[in-house]
């Protein structure tokens, strides 16, 4: 059950992030602690926190929406954290970016 000590494979320097593999960077950590893991509702604060985390998520998300959509990844369209208004914002942002790209390309 406890495998933190001697049974650790020699290739693994520390429990998480071994030699030959890249250590966890901040981006990887943020991605996991913000988007994954158990979501427990039931406490008042959590409901409000969902809204706050949402703004962070949106900021992280917006720059990469086009890339994600190109890749066929559209989780935010089904993400219960995002309201219809948030989706509208994403859409609008996407339209504006596209417009800018078109203008820039034709200059």
């Amino acid at each position, binding site marked *: 059950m406890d495998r933190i000590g001697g049974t650790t494979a020699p290739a693994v320097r520390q429990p998480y992030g071994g030699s030959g593999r890249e250590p966890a960077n901040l981006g990887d950590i943020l991605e996991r602690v*913000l988007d994954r893991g158990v979501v427990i509702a039931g406490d008042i604060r959590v409901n*409000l926190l969902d809204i706050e985390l949402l703004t962070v998520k949106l900021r992280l998300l917006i*720059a990469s929406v086009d890339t*994600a959509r190109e890749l066929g990844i559209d989780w935010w369209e089904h993400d219960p954290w995002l309201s219809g208004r948030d989706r509208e914002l994403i859409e609008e942002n996407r339209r504006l970016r596209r417009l800018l790209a078109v203008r820039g390309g034709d200059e």
Partner: protein
Amino acid sequence: MTGDAGTYVYAVARSAVECPDGVGSVRTVAGAGLVAYVSTVPLAEFGEEPLRRSLEDLDWLSVTARAHHRVVETVAAATPTAPVRLVTVYADDQQVRDLLERRRDDFLDVLSHVTGRREWGVKVYAGHSSEPSATARGGGDARKPEGGDAHKPGNGDARKPGTAYLERRRAGLRGREQVRRQLLARADHMHAALSALSVASCRHRAQDPHLSGRTEMMVLNGAYLVDEGRDEEFAAAAGGLGGDGVEVRLTGPWAPYSFTVMEAR
């Protein structure tokens, strides 16, 4: 004591292990045969209003995320663990005990699913070199402003410079589209190959370049729950998928962040 302190939850497991500090010193709250790893936090920092501001502060967020992750990974390295989403704060320990009792079966299901297994992350990047976008980008400079001369009737070869430019540009876009399709197909194939070695797998959205710190296109951002005995096999398989303009980045083992989904209620 409901006024100025709350109980911050990092993770839930079946047994108590020693733990470094997180956002505060870490202790455990036991109930229903489960153990929650928690810290007492000041509501001056972890209350609604302060969090509303500090979650927008990337410095605060990164320190808190690392502290949270440190606790989660330590517990996960020692015992099957269900990581809890960042900044989950309860009014007091009793609320946490109630939670453990109320959701006992859900937690036990999640914990048995991840027992003896570890999460690995695989990110696949496609380099710029394979993208023939230079024609499309350089097109603007090659364009010549004169339009009248080329507009002679009867001369089949001399086309409008603008038309030639548009055709070049269209060809460039077609080529790029083709490369993109090939990359996506390859990413699907890689994901299938890695999933075959896993107990469970999922694809996450491509990471923002600001987070990844890289400008290449991320064509796969996968997470894989792998039996502990197959770690090396999995790592070797992942490594073997790279090459030919495609770079594979393996991270882990992680606490099973991607495989501890519980219905929120």
